[in-house]
């Protein structure tokens, strides 16, 4: 019995199996956000329709639901009514804000007219805000607490339950 071969071999076997086993059940596509618990990057962007500048800092004092979306994105189309309904119910205690990038103002205006409009939507022309927030795709929603710290991030279309769940994390702070 060659002890060296046995120990080296079993060590390699254990290491390989352990590593692969640890990987099972995890979704390789789900990326954690490093911004959670950190102050939300501030911005001042132009609102669609009014041309007004909306500054994120002005919204301090209450929790903010910051939703990144685009008109060409199918899940965004589907989640929009949920956002509008919850905004109507929760504002002004909670501020909702939409950010659109890689899109045309005309199309955004048309979308809002069609799907409903309950909170401001701003345009992030060069997509720099999206990058600062680590947005990989749309829709992605950030939940800020009243001091402007990001408490939760949700990737994908929201439902009322998921929205409530994440909003609790922001309100609790």
């Amino acid at each position: 019995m060659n002890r060296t071969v046995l120990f080296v071999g079993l060590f390699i076997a254990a290491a390989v199996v352990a590593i692969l086993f640890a990987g099972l059940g995890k979704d390789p596509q789900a990326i954690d956000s490093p911004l959670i618990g950190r102050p939300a990057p501030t911005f001042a962007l132009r609102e669609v329709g009014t041309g007004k500048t909306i500054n994120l800092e002005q919204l301090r004092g209450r929790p903010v639901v910051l939703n990144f979306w685009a008109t060409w994105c199918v899940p965004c189309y589907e989640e929009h009514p949920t956002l509008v309904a919850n905004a109507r119910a929760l504002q002004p205690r909670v501020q909702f804000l939409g950010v659109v990038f890689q899109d045309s103002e005309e199309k955004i205006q048309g979308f809002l007219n069609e799907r409903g409009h309950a909170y401001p939507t701003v345009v992030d022309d060069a997509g720099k805000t999206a990058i600062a927030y680590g947005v990989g795709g749309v829709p992605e929603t950030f939940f800020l607490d009243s001091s402007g710290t990001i408490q939760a991030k949700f990737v994908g279309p929201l439902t009322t339950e998921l929205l409530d769940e994440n909003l609790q994390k922001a309100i609790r702070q």
Partner: protein
Amino acid sequence: MAFLLVALLLQTAPDAATFVGAPQGTPLSGAALEARTVEVAALLRCPVCQGMSIADSPSEMAVNMKHQVHDLLARGFTEEQILDYFERSYGQFVLLKPKCRGVTSLVWVLPVLVLAIGAVLAISKMKKLERPGNPAAERTDDDPYLARVRDLTRGGKK
């Protein structure tokens, strides 16, 4: 009109300088800028594609990020600052080249270690093989009768 201009000027998207400080390199332009953009973009991972860099990926998000890189290089940010900036918002996930710090440095060190240990083992094996072979070793025939006799008399181990 003036109001619009002022409004435009007042708009600010979050800027890299807020997070990584003032540009520490020289601003680039022209062919050098294009070349560097591709180089740095090749180090950043497209967050929505499977493993591609933003230099290679055609997706909108990747193109957006590549334009940011282009922009930042033109303003004089160094590669390190740019990578740092993206890492702040996307996490280490976005860096295609693992950092040489902490636990991730292992991925750089281990192969070198294996090469070194392997070289030592290979050389010692060569030395062992250089020694004259044991006198009783002859070409193993596959005559099954002879093999059985050997098995029975030697118990299978020399």
